[in-house]
């Protein structure tokens, strides 16, 4: 619309300018001369001024040419910047594409997580069933489980591992937070850059508005200058057109930037929701992880405890079997004992009866001993008598021996006589024989004598024999009686000893009687005691049998306990395995979280790249701004020059009303341009506001990221607290029952939490899908930006071309202006001549009013 007004004015102005002077000099005649002189003088002055102005304009035109050249160079620089921007935009697009891919990956990962969580949920359900069963089993053996307190040290170690893992997780979260913070900082940087870009854009807008207005002004002014400035005007028109196009393009860019801002806002919102979902998921995951770790620890604990219990129970079972065996042995021993006690009782009774017999016997012995004492006394008396008789007999025998010896002597004498007689008879016989016949009778007598003597000798010999025998008998009798005496003495002695022995026996028997009485009492006491012992043994037997039976039952019970302990062990193992699986899943989840972190890092890197792109964009924008500023300054210079020219033209226009009217029209057009610029600026302000909002959103994102970091810190702290809690839990060894119940409850909670986690994961997936969608949209937007940048680049190139043309036109204009100046110089000379002439005309009053000097 401004172009139409400016295009209409140059057609009227060139014709109006030459006719202005004659029209102004016509009104009155009298004063007209003076007026004319003044006018001519004024005109001359103005012409001089115009000349000056033209000269200045020429120099300004040259300057403008130089400025246009500079502007062209700046435009080229801007084109390069735009190129860079486009490249940066493409990089941004690629980065966003990678972000989108990452988001898709994230989605896939989350889906995997979701499926893993579902598996985990199924596993947890199984675990819950097992845990409930285990809880029931554990409830039944809870009292035994107090021994498991020891195993909680292992649990403490597990808790420490849990703590360490949590700390590591916290570190990871903190790192993530740091990364997010860094990302936020980068977002802030981006925001500031965007703000800068916005400011630059604003300034650029203003500059462009100024350029536009200046260009329009210059165009108007230059157009209003002369027909010779047509090329300049045309060039300015083109420039104006291009600038308008450029403005439109900038508008478009602005709009695209707004769209981008909206998209980024949407992304930010999605990121916020994703962050919320991630936070919820993280808290859920932490909860689940804590719960699972708790369950795992508890399961490990339970498993260890159950194992320990099982071992203890088996040991107990073996011990119980041994006890049973011992009890059976005790029972058999007790039976033997009872039998022995019964036998002992019988023996005791037998002893008692024997003692009674002994008592009777001792009484009899005492009686007999007394009787024996009497007998011995009698024996002693008898022995004394015997002794006496023996002594008497011995003396008799000795006497008899003496007589026998006397008889022997007599017999010897007889024998001697007989021998002599024999000898005599023999000699007589020999004598008789010698005597022959005379001695015959004598021989007979001698023979008879010899025979008698022989008989006598024989009888004597017999007597001797008898006496000898008698003497031997007497000697024997004496010896016998001596022996008998000795024996009698000994007998008496022995009898005395016997009597003493009997009295001793009597005394002993009396003592024995007392002892036997004591023994009898003792044996009856013993009998009583033995009966008590027998009764006790019987009781012991019965009790030991009961104990054996009970221990047998106990053994059976313990064996059943051992069986249930084994079942428990199996269940605990199942639970442990399931928990281990869960832990594995969780570890995968944690790994996935690490991947998520990696993805976040990728996103951060992409954002960093985006930031770099944005920085490059900012730099390009700065360069653009610089170029625009240069252009603007050139334009300002041009405008200044144009202003100078306008001043000249105003002066010219002052000289001519049409010029004034044209200038007024030009002013109107300039106002319109200004309005248009105002609109453009408003757009730019809106753009800037949008950018500010974007910055705000980025700050919000930053705040969100900081919240995430804070939450991560809290999570870390909570994990540390959980670690402490786990450590404290390790101490609660006595509360196995409660822990087991807690396990069941925790598993249930875990299931619930897993459900929540699944929901959260689903939400997260939805968020990630939305993020993916947004990223895709962002990519589209960035691609649109790229397209816009490409069109901007094309337009800038056009501008450059136009500026080149303008430069050339400006050179032409400068030449024209120079010719104008020359003409104006001629005009001035002519004016001066006119002035001279007019002065000559008006010589009288104002003769010396030669102003043209």
């Amino acid at each position, binding site marked *: 619309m401004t172009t139409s007004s400016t295009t209409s004015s140059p057609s009227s102005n060139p014709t109006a300018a030459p006719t202005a002077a004659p029209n102004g000099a016509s009104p009155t005649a009298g004063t007209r001369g003076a007026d004319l002189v003044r006018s001519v003088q004024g005109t001359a002055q103005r012409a001089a001024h115009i000349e000056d102005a033209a000269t200045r304009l020429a120099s300004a035109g040259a300057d403008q040419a130089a400025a246009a050249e500079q502007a062209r160079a700046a435009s080229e620089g801007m084109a390069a910047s735009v190129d860079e921007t486009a490249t940066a935009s493409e990089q941004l697009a690629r980065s966003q594409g990678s972000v989108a891919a990452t988001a898709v990956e994230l989605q896939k990962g989350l889906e995997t997580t979701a499926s893993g969580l579902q598996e985990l949920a199924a596993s947890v359900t199984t675990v819950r069933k097992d845990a409930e069963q285990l809880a029931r089993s554990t409830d039944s053996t809870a009292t035994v489980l107090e021994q498991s307190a020891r195993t909680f040290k292992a649990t403490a170690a597990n808790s420490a591992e849990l703590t360490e893992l949590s700390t590591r997780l916290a570190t990871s979260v903190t790192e993530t937070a740091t990364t997010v913070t860094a990302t936020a900082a980068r977002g802030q940087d981006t925001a500031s850059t965007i703000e800068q870009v916005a400011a630059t854009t604003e300034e650029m807008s203003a500059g462009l508005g100024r350029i536009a207005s200046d260009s329009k002004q210059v165009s108007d002014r230059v157009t209003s200058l002369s027909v010779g400035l047509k090329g300049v005007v045309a060039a300015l028109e083109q420039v104006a057109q291009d600038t308008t196009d450029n403005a439109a393009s900038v508008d478009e860019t602005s709009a695209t930037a707004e769209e981008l801002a909206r998209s980024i806002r949407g992304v930010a919102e999605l990121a916020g929701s994703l962050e919320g979902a991630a936070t919820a998921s993280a808290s859920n995951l932490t909860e689940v992880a804590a719960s699972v770790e708790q369950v795992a620890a508890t399961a490990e604990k339970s498993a260890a405890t159950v194992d320990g219990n099982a071992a203890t129970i088996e040991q107990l079972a073996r011990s119980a079997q041994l006890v049973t065996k011992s009890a059976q042995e005790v029972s058999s021993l007790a039976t033997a004992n009872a039998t022995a006690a019964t036998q002992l009782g019988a023996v005791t009774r037998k002893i008692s009866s024997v003692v009674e017999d002994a008592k009777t016997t001792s009484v009899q012995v005492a009686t007999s001993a007394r009787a024996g004492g009497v007998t011995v006394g009698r024996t002693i008396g008898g022995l004394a008598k015997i002794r006496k008789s023996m002594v008497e007999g011995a003396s008799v025998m000795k006497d008899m021996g003496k007589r026998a010896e006397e008889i022997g002597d007599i017999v010897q004498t007889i024998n001697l006589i007989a021998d002599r007689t024999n*000898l005599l008879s*023999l000699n007589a016989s*020999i004598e008789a024989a010698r005597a022959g016949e005379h001695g015959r009778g004598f021989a007979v007598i001698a023979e008879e004598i010899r025979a008698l003597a022989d008989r006598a000798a024989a009888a004597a010999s017999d007597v001797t024999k008898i006496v000898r025998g008698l003497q031997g008998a007497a000697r024997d009798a004496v010896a016998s009686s001596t022996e008998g005496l000795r024996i009698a003495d000994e007998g008496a002695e022995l009898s005395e000893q016997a009597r003493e022995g009997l009295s001793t026996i009597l005394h002993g028997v009396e003592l024995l009687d007392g002892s036997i009485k004591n023994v009898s009492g003792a044996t009856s006491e013993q009998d009583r005691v033995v009966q008590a012992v027998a009764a006790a043994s019987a009781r012991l037997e019965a009790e030991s049998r009961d104990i054996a039976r009970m221990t047998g039952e106990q053994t059976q019970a313990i064996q059943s306990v051992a069986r249930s302990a084994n079942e428990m062990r199996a269940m605990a193992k199942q639970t442990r395995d399931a928990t281990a699986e869960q832990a594995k899943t969780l570890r995968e989840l944690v790994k996935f979280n690490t991947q998520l972190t990696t993805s976040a890092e990728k996103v951060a890197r992409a954002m960093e790249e985006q930031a770099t792109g944005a920085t490059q964009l900012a730099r390009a924008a700065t360069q653009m701004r610089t170029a625009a500023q240069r252009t603007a300054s050139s334009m300002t210079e041009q405008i200044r020059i144009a202003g100078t020219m306008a001043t000249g033209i105003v002066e010219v226009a002052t000289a001519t009303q049409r010029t004034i009217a044209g200038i007024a029209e030009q002013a109107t057009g300039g106002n319109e341009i200004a309005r248009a610029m105002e609109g453009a600026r408003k757009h730019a302000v809106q753009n800037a506001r949008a950018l500010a909002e974007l910055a705000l959103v980025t700050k919000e994102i930053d705040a969100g990221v900081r919240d995430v970091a804070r939450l991560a810190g809290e999570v870390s702290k909570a994990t540390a607290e959980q670690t402490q809690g786990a450590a404290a839990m390790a101490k609660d060894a006595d509360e196995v029952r409660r822990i087991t119940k807690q396990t069941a409850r925790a598993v249930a909670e875990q299931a619930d939490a897993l459900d929540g986690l699944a929901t959260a994961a689903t939400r997260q997936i939805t968020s990630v899908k939305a993020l993916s969608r947004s990223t895709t949209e962002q990519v589209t937007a960035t691609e649109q930006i790229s397209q816009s940048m490409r069109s901007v680049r094309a337009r800038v190139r056009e501008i450059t071309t136009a500026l080149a043309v303008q430069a050339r036109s400006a050179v032409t204009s400068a030449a024209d202006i120079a010719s104008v100046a020359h003409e104006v110089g001629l005009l001035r000379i002519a004016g001066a001549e006119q002035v001279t002439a007019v002065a000559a005309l008006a010589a009288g009053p104002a003769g010396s009013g030669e102003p043209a000097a």
Partner: protein
Amino acid sequence: MTLHVTFRVGNARYVVPAAEVLHLESYETATHVPGAPAYVAGLVQVRGRLVPVVDLRIRFGLPAIEHTIDRRVVVVQAGTRVAGLLVDSAREVLQIDDAAFEHPPELVERQTAGFVKAVATVAKRLFLLIDIPRVLGEELRP
């Protein structure tokens, strides 16, 4: 029939003819003759004359015995020589038929160194008839 005085030395019965016996005497003791042979018990005084006594136990090689009341000395006369024979006992005279005497067996004769001249069996009792001169020996020769 010839009267013989019987006596005992050891356990054998000997006889000498009563004609060669002067008388029998009890034996108390003998006076030892120095330088006489061992079988000479000594000298005894019998009826006023000194008679050497030959201990037949020693002469017959028997061991000596204690003195007993039964030991007697048989005083014999061989030619002019009168000697006493100390025997263990001599308490009998006996009428023995001369035909009853027989020569002793050669072995006995040689063994007894000629002391036994003959043997005779009377009422189942065996009597050895001694050779007095031989029994007395050369030593007793005056």
